Each structure stands twice: as C-alpha cells, then as structure tokens.
C-alpha cells in the first residue's frame, strides 16, 4: 500500500466482456487488478482484504453502485472510489460523488481518459493513508500526553501530601520541644532549634511554591477580554501594605486591553509589581512605570520598569528559572518562584518574557500578550 507496491484496483461491472477488457488493459499499465461482476461478491471481498481504488459501475442488479460505495467506505474510509457510468446519467454520477466517490468516468471510455483519473485516485489514496497515519500518531501522542499529565497529577499530589506531612511533624515536634524547654536552653541550643524551625518553614514555602508552579503550568485558560489598566490599578491597591511608609510614584500609561485569562494575568502583574517594589525599597522615592507598546502581530508588549537595585545582565539567563535568585536571601527575601510563574503564564498565553537591567539603575520586565482586537468592546463593554 506504499508508493513502491503496485496500486491495487477492484473493478466491479456486471457486463463481463467489458470487465475483462478493462482488467487486461489496466494490468498492462502496471496496476494490480481484481475484476468482479457481482456487487454482492465485491462486498464480500472488500470485507476480507483492502484495495487502494474501487472502480465500479453504478447500475447493477442486486446491490447497486451507491450501496456498494457506502458499504465499502464504511469498511475503509481511505478507499478511493471512482464510478463508471453510461451516457446521460451524469446525475447519478453526481449522486455517487456525493456518496463519497472521488471521480467518475463516462462510458464508453478510452484508455487515455481513464489513466489520468486513476493516477489522481492513486495520489488521493496515498494522501488519505498518510492522513490516517498522522491522525493515529496524533491520537497516540495525545494518549501519551494524557497519561503523562495524569502521572504529573499523582506526582504533585504525592509531593504536596506525602512530603509536607513529615515536614509538618518535624516542625511541630521541634516547636513542642522548644516549648517544653522554654527557659532551660543554654549556649547555642536556642540557635540550633531556631535553625531547624526556620529551615522547615522555608522548605514548606518551597514545596508550596513548587506546587503552585506545577498547577499554573496546567491550569485551564479562561480566555476573555482583560482590562489591563484596571487590573494594574487593582494590583496596586492590593499592594498597599507594602508601600506604607514609603514614597512610591506609580506611572500607569494607557494600557490596551489584552486577550487572556484575567486571574492568571493578574498573577503576572502582581509578581512584577511586587518585585518592582521589593527591589526599589532602598530608594528615597520609588518610581514604577507600567506601559505597553503594541507590535505588528496584534500582540502588546507590556512592561514594568522600576528604579531599584537592578542586576547584572550577565546572569539574566537564569532570571526566569525555578528558584533562581539574583540576590542573597539576607538582602531580599523570597524563594525565587515569582518570575518562573510569570514566564509559565505568559508562555501559556503564547507570549514571551524578557528583562533589561543594570546594577543600581533599575530593571524593566517585558511580557507580550495578544491584544484584544474588538475595538468596539474597549469603550462599549463598560
């Protein structure tokens, strides 16, 4: 059934002399031909073995051509059917094509007329087989992916449940020990206990962060129009506790609405805005600028710029990795999951992230998201 093998033809015609002539001629042309004069028998044969092309008459006693076509295509949807029909029955030929035939040949026909039709039919057969193969490959891959996803589910459940429990116990029992020894600890003992407690707390945070990261990578996107400017303002008001006692100037440029998942995009903004605040807290005045530059492909490149401590671009490659940090824990707290979450969410939206920075001169984080296209909705939705 590949290109190398001869194309196999099943010819069905109740006029035996014509059938025989056709078989001989087409065999000489390199086809592997099987002729049969009864449509009933043809059906039995089609059930037993596959052919590449079915060449059939339409008007036959018993099961007619249309019935044969329908039954044959049910056995093998990739079978290519060509019908032969007499003068004046174009209508029936059209009916046959509607039933799934690829082409028709008007009787009586010359070899020069039938060969191009069969060549086209052969090409179609190969195409259909390839398609089927691709479909099956896609189906296999999808099944593999689904299985992998299920495994990941089980894995994250195991991480969250089975890893967290012993950690909780270490923490709880160390805490109970500390309580019962309250006032009786000497020398470095309080320090030792303190480190145990701090480290378990930190590991708890890491596990929770890792789970959240895994969840984001698989969360279903609920796409819609997202008013990015409103969302930025919402995030800013939620960040109020972090700005208390500081001078912070927010410069929110006009932001076009994006097409995306509102909750997830809010998480992107929260991460970037709280980072901007965190790394600029040593400044007398913090300035955070949020803007957007639409590109040609209908995407918007949003950015968050701060005047904070920045970082050396030499290490920018690691910036968006899981648990990667640019600063020591003692300088700026955090586990280093935030930007990994940002990248994961933006990638899920078909966009990209990048950053520019210079030590002590602030940092700018860019992310692209498809813009919401419906111009009416911008003013009309509210």
């Amino acid at each position, binding site marked *: 059934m590949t290109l190398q093998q001869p194309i196999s033809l099943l010819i069905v015609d109740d006029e035996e002399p014509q059938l025989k002539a056709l078989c001989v001629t087409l065999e000489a042309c390199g086809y592997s031909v099987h002729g049969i004069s009864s449509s009933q028998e043809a059906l039995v044969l089609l059930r037993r073995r596959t052919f590449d092309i079915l060449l059939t008459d339409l008007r036959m006693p018993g099961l007619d051509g249309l019935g044969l076509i329908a039954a044959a295509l049910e056995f093998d949807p990739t079978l290519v059917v060509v019908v032969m029909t007499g003068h004046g029955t174009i209508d029936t030929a059209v009916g046959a094509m509607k039933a799934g035939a690829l082409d028709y040949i008007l009787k009586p026909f010359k070899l020069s007329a039938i060969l191009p039709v069969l060549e086209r039919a052969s090409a179609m057969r190969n195409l259909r087989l390839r398609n089927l193969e691709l479909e099956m490959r896609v189906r296999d891959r999808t099944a593999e992916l689904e299985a992998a996803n299920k495994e990941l589910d089980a894995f994250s*459940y195991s991480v*969250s*449940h089975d890893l*967290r*429990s012993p*950690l*909780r*116990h270490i*923490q*709880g*029992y*160390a*805490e*109970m020990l500390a309580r019962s020894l309250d006032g009786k600890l000497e020398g470095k003992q309080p320090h030792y206990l303190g480190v145990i407690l701090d480290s*378990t*707390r930190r590991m*708890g945070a890491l*596990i929770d962060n890792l789970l959240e990261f895994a969840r984001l990578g698989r969360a279903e996107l609920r796409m819609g129009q997202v008013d990015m400017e409103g969302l930025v303002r919402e995030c800013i008001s939620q960040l109020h506790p972090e700005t208390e006692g500081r001078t912070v100037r927010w410069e929110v440029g006009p932001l076009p609405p994006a097409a995306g998942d509102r909750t997830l995009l809010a998480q992107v903004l929260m991460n970037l805005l709280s980072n901007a605040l965190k790394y600029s807290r040593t400044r007398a005045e913090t300035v955070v600028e949020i803007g957007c530059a639409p590109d040609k492909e209908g995407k918007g490149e949003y950015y968050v710029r701060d005047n904070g401590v920045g970082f050396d671009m030499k290490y920018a490659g690691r910036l968006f990795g899981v648990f990667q940090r640019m600063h020591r824990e003692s300088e700026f707290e955090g586990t280093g999951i935030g930007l990994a979450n940002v990248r994961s969410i933006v990638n899920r939206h078909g966009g990209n992230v990048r950053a520019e920075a210079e030590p002590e001169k602030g940092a700018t984080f860019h992310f692209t998201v498809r813009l919401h296209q419906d111009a009416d909705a911008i003013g009309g939705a509210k």
Partner: protein
Amino acid sequence: MKLKRILLAEDSPLDVEMTLEALAGNGLANAIDVVNDGVEALDYLFRREAFAARPDENPGLLILDIKMPRLDGLQVLEQVKKAEHLRTIPVVILTASRQEKDLYQSYRLGVNAFVVKPVDFHEFADAIKVLGLFWAILNEPPPRSNS
C-alpha cells in the same frame, strides 16, 4: 455550659498528638475522642462495634482527615450527610494538602469547612483552636428533632 465532644478521625498518631497538644490549655483537649480511620469513625457515629455502648449523643464537631486507611474522610463525610440523625453534625475536613478535586468534592458532599494543615505549628495550633472554639463552643447547633 456542657461541652460537646469532638470526634477526630486521623490515622497519623503524630498528627493526633500535635492536635491534642494544640488544644491543651483551653480545656478542649479533654473533649476529644480519637479514631484512626474512616471505618472506626462510622462505628463511633453509628454506635456499633467497639462503640456500641457509647451514650446516644452526637459529637458537637467531626474533624476528618482525608487520606486514611480503609475508608477515607470523603467517604465518611458522604455517609454522615446521608444519615438523617447525623447530617446536622458540623464536619471539618482537615487535610495535609490543598487538592482542588478534594475541595470540590468536599463541598459537593456538604462539608462545613475545609482546612489545610499548615506546616507551621503555631498556625496549626491556631487553626485547631479556632475550629474547636467555633464549632464546639460558639456555634449554636440546630435543635435535635427526635429527642
């Protein structure tokens, strides 16, 4: 005021100990009955097997771990909410992990609260105390219709 008993279904002896420790000091610890899996929890609630002689009184609060041998917490919850004389007992699911499908399933089955055991012991102790205080002391249960 007469203190209602709290039934804690928890298979981890360490979690049991931590829970009792958390409740120590406010009088709630004495009011706790502990069972180690879902089957025992139902035996307790339906007053059968080892609990056949238990006085005919529902606990004021049922705290269920999800992952337990034999019958898990969700299955116990389902049975409790199906039983006419048990369905008014407030049920709190206290679990090690926040799984969305567990959350969804719990609320679908009529849970009253879903609490994830915090890693931090102080938070854990606080959560347990709040649960005990609220459900066993502050919350006014519905009157018993058949007594």
